[in-house]
């Protein structure tokens, strides 16, 4: 191996900066899963009967399912009876409160993570719903949003205050029968974010959910539901971190988006769950089902994700293009380092006429990381003039990582236009030499080349988060060259 290649190896061994634990008294259920646990979760949340029945149906269905094995990720079987399904900071267990009631330790936690919640330091122009283990602890800018009719609150609060909306849309895009993890989530989910944008409203600020797993052996199962009515628009961001622990922790979330006529939803994720240590010990198992429904004509849903964390990422943010002239987009950067595994991609299901989808996926593998793109573009028999463009690029750093691409295409209408491009490349010694010879340090050279590789995706993120994503890539790959 040349010295330059060794530099790369060293460069990709960074430390996880969000790995601290917050000491808090918690209100937790004992580990294990049963109908009784589900009843207790529902009772703790004081849910209406329809919620409990839906959870129980989901649980009974889940019992009939097997763990999916088709993806390219490997891990020992999970014992679902070892997991704690509900854990809430004591102070927050009675539901969302005003910021004054949030425990100072929790406020400090978010501050340390760069997400200040208290009024004077709140991120300008971004409303944040902060989810800590199983519950939402605070939502900022709620009143300001309410002025224009936008509902943005924790899922628990939505169940209490807007049960009709929850009942109408919950499970309408991702039914609990969808897959193993979606069924599990439906049975035990404890909180999440809810957003409703009424007709003709452009949501005046970015909405954001910040997920934090803190407690040991706790699974996080949250649900996000976003409904955007006719001629409305929302841009939504999601961020995630967790402490460094030797044990694996499970995160199985569901996100459902619904866009009605001429509505637009932009959903961006900067995922930075703890990825495990250099030997692959610990880290989050991230098994997430995200799907958007372009229900109305001329509606548009776009997913942008920057995935740098998790021991395992299993996630396919998808769009069902049901409305005529609807548009679905998927822009992704997935980085795997050390022993991380990612199997991620998207499904674009073209049903309406004149529907268009775009997929741009950038996979970066370093260390012993394994990175797979898995995608399905399907064009139904009535979907005339469907168009898709897919581009999947992989970048390999070092000699022990791998990249895989599994694009599936199913076309049932002769007018469909489908394009697919794929490349695999590595940072060559010659590129590094060139940068070094111009006086650029090896670290800066690698991060410059990687940022160049990801540029098309970072451009899709809102400004502040593009900067954050860029910094995150640097931290995730840090470790440093000499």
């Amino acid at each position, binding site marked *: 191996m040349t010295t330059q290649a060794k530099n790369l190896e060293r460069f990709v061994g960074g430390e996880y900066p969000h790995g601290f634990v917050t000491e808090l008294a918690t209100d937790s259920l004992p580990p294990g899963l049963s109908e009784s646990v589900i009843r207790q979760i529902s009772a703790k949340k004081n849910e209406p009967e329809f919620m409990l029945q839906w959870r129980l149906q989901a649980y009974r269905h889940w019992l009939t399912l097997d763990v999916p094995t088709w993806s390219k990720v490997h891990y020992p079987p999970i014992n679902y009876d070892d997991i704690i399904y509900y854990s809430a900071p004591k102070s927050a267990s009675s539901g969302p409160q005003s910021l004054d009631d949030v425990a100072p330790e929790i406020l400090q936690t978010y501050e340390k993570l760069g997400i200040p919640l208290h009024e004077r330091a709140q991120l300008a122009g971004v409303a944040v719903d902060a989810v800590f283990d199983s519950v939402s602890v605070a939502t900022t800018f709620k009143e300001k949003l309410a002025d224009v009719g936008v509902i943005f609150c924790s899922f628990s609060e939505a169940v209490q205050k807007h049960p009709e909306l929850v009942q109408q849309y919950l499970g309408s895009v991702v039914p609990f029968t969808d897959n193993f993890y979606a069924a599990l989530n439906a049975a035990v989910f404890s909180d999440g974010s809810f957003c409703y944008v009424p007709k003709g409203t452009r949501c005046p600020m970015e909405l954001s959910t910040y997920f934090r797993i803190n407690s040991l052996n706790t699974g996080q199962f949250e649900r996000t539901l976003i409904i955007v009515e006719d001629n409305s628009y929302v841009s939504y961001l999601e961020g995630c971190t967790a402490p460094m622990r030797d044990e694996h922790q499970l995160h199985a979330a569901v996100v459902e988006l619904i866009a009605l006529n001429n509505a637009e939803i932009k959903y961006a994720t900067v995922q930075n769950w703890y990825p495990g240590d250099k030997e692959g010990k610990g880290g989050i198992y991230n098994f997430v089902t995200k799907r958007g429904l372009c229900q109305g004509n001329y509606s548009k849903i776009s997913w942008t994700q920057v995935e740098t964390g998790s021991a395992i990422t299993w996630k396919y943010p998808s769009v069902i293009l049901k409305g005529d002239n609807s548009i679905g987009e998927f822009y992704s950067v997935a980085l795997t380092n050390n022993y991380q595994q990612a199997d991620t991609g998207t499904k674009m299901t073209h049903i309406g006429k004149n529907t268009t989808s775009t997929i741009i996926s950038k996979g970066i593998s370093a260390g012993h990381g394994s990175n797979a793109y898995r995608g399905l573009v399907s064009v139904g028999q009535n979907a005339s003039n469907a168009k898709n463009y897919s581009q999947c690029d992989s970048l390999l750093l070092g000699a022990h990582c791998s990249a895989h691409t599994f694009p599936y295409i199913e076309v049932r209408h002769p007018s469909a236009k489908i394009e697919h491009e794929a490349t695999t490349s590595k940072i060559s010694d010659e590129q590094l*030499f060139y940068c070094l010879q111009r006086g*650029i340090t090896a670290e800066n050279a690698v991060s410059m080349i990687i940022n160049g590789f990801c540029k098309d995706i970072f451009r899709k993120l809102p400004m502040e988060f593009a900067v954050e994503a860029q910094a995150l890539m640097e931290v995730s790959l840090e470790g440093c060259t000499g």
Partner: protein
Amino acid sequence: MLKVNNLHVEIQGNEILNGLCLSVGAGEVHAIMGPNGSGKSTLANVLAGHEDYQVTAGEVLFNGSNLLELSISERACEGIFLALQYPVEIPGVSNVQFLKTALNSQRKYHQLNELDAMDFLQWLKTKVQQVGMEEQLLYRSVNEGFSGGEKKRNEILQMLVLEPKLAILDETDSGLDIDALKLVAKGVNAFRHVNTPKQQRAIILVTHYQRLLNYIKPNFVHVLLNGRIVQSGGPELALELEENGYASFVDKAS
């Protein structure tokens, strides 16, 4: 400025340079000529610190200090610039960003303030004119989709921006048509003639052909054969080589 003594260099166990000596003074232009495989590119790369080449003996002094102890980027920051024979493409990184990152890295090394985007861009545009490059190439990815001539001119632009003390041009003339060659020469001459006493610049031209030397007049011409310099002289030596080839030097080398 540069003193190379008895330099021996191997690549994968094969000796390419054996006992090369060369001395380059401030303000001088040296042309190194020689047939394929004589070690010209090896010399250029080894001075820049390329890690495929192992120095097995000899020393290289640059402004009095041991060059071989420095890393690639330290050598660059100390003022060594290598215009590559085959410039590398860096997708997604714009030419402007690359140049700015490079210049600011070097400024940081010398504990100077980094230039901000506006100041940098204005100054960059004057340099772009000197090599007759289209401004739009600044916003394209480094060398990606550039023609052969554009790539070589881009190397010269980088040299003008970074203002090294010693520029080594490795076959910058190869593959250029006559118009492109003139533009490259114009850029090199612009670089060469900013010779304030404090900032005297030296150039090593590695080339196959005498043609380039019509436009950039060297002070010295060296013939490199089998890993060492077998003959040195003035510009007339290049003309002689053009006439008679390297055959007459082969005996001297063996």
